[in-house]
């Protein structure tokens, strides 16, 4: 359950950002989570509700935008979606691909008053 530690980081960053903006209320926090980031969105949601209690984040919405993983084939340079880490290049069948997105764990934006 490393989602708990990750959620604590989300809460820390969101509250620091809100304070910097002198926000009175936080409506939502939007995350970009790569499909291969190793994080389970449902678990983040669960932890978020627990971690945001009694803070400016309480009652705010956690919006998770999933980023599809993509790789570039080392042999033929074709870019293709990686549904899992074992997918092969659809053009040449090579298993050697370099992941260039899909591991994101970012806070994208927030809605505040």
């Amino acid at each position, binding site marked *: 359950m490393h989602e708990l530690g990750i959620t604590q980081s989300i809460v820390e960053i969101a509250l620091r950002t809100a304070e910097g903006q002198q926000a009175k209320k936080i409506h939502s926090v939007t995350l970009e989570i790569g499909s291969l980031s*190793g994080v389970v969105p449902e678990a983040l949601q669960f932890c978020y509700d627990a971690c945001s209690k009694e803070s400016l984040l309480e009652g705010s919405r956690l919006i998770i935008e999933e980023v599809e993983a993509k790789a570039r084939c080392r042999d033929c340079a074709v870019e293709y979606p990686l549904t899992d880490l074992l997918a092969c290049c659809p053009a040449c069948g090579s298993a050697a691909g370099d992941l260039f997105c899909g591991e994101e764990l970012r*806070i*994208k934006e927030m*809605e505040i008053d």
Partner: protein
Amino acid sequence: MCVDCGCAEPDHHHGEVPRKRISVEEDILAKNDRLAAANRALFAEQGVFSLNLVSSPGSGKTSLLEKTLADLKSEINFAVLEGDQQTANDAERIATTGVPVHQINTGAGCHLDAHMVGHGLEHFDLDSLQMLMIENVGNLVCPASFDLGEDFKVSLLSVTEGEDKPLKYPQMFRASEIMLVNKIDLLPYVRFDVAKCREYAERVHPGIRIFEISCYSGEGLDRWYDWLREKVGEKRTKG
């Protein structure tokens, strides 16, 4: 009908201030990554080669350390950070080798993070240190996401587990530059296909370096030791 006041007018506002949307664009693990970068800079400055050992519980991380330390401590100055949820059992085992060791208990935590490692380093004399071994919490999932500042992650897999572990836990094997297949002295007694295991690891992580070893019989350890000597030497020169 307006849902707020019940009047007949459908679209009217009740003095709401429009919400402000602000861009944050910050990595959630940025703090861990910053602390890991600080650890990495310290290792570089002091010429310390460091490994982060990861595996399921019971694959033989502590046995590997005991054996490696016993065989190489006369030529390499080691220190060990032990990560477990509870107990100092592993640190006590390492302490019998005479190598400096510090136990980190993570409590409910399922992995070590860069902050814990940074503080763990305070227990060692870095000036004389050549190699730091970090034994992570036994877990093939969570430690993959947390950089500790190490040079390499090393995944251990023992032949009493399934040879398909690299396929089942691809994140970890992709993050590891090295895979050690441990307990090969048991191969005659278990159904474990080493060739398949190598193929699976190679699929998840093309170019992964694999050592087949037994900490019990000592088989294969010479190649692992040669690799350690080489890497410690390279780091020492850079530091």
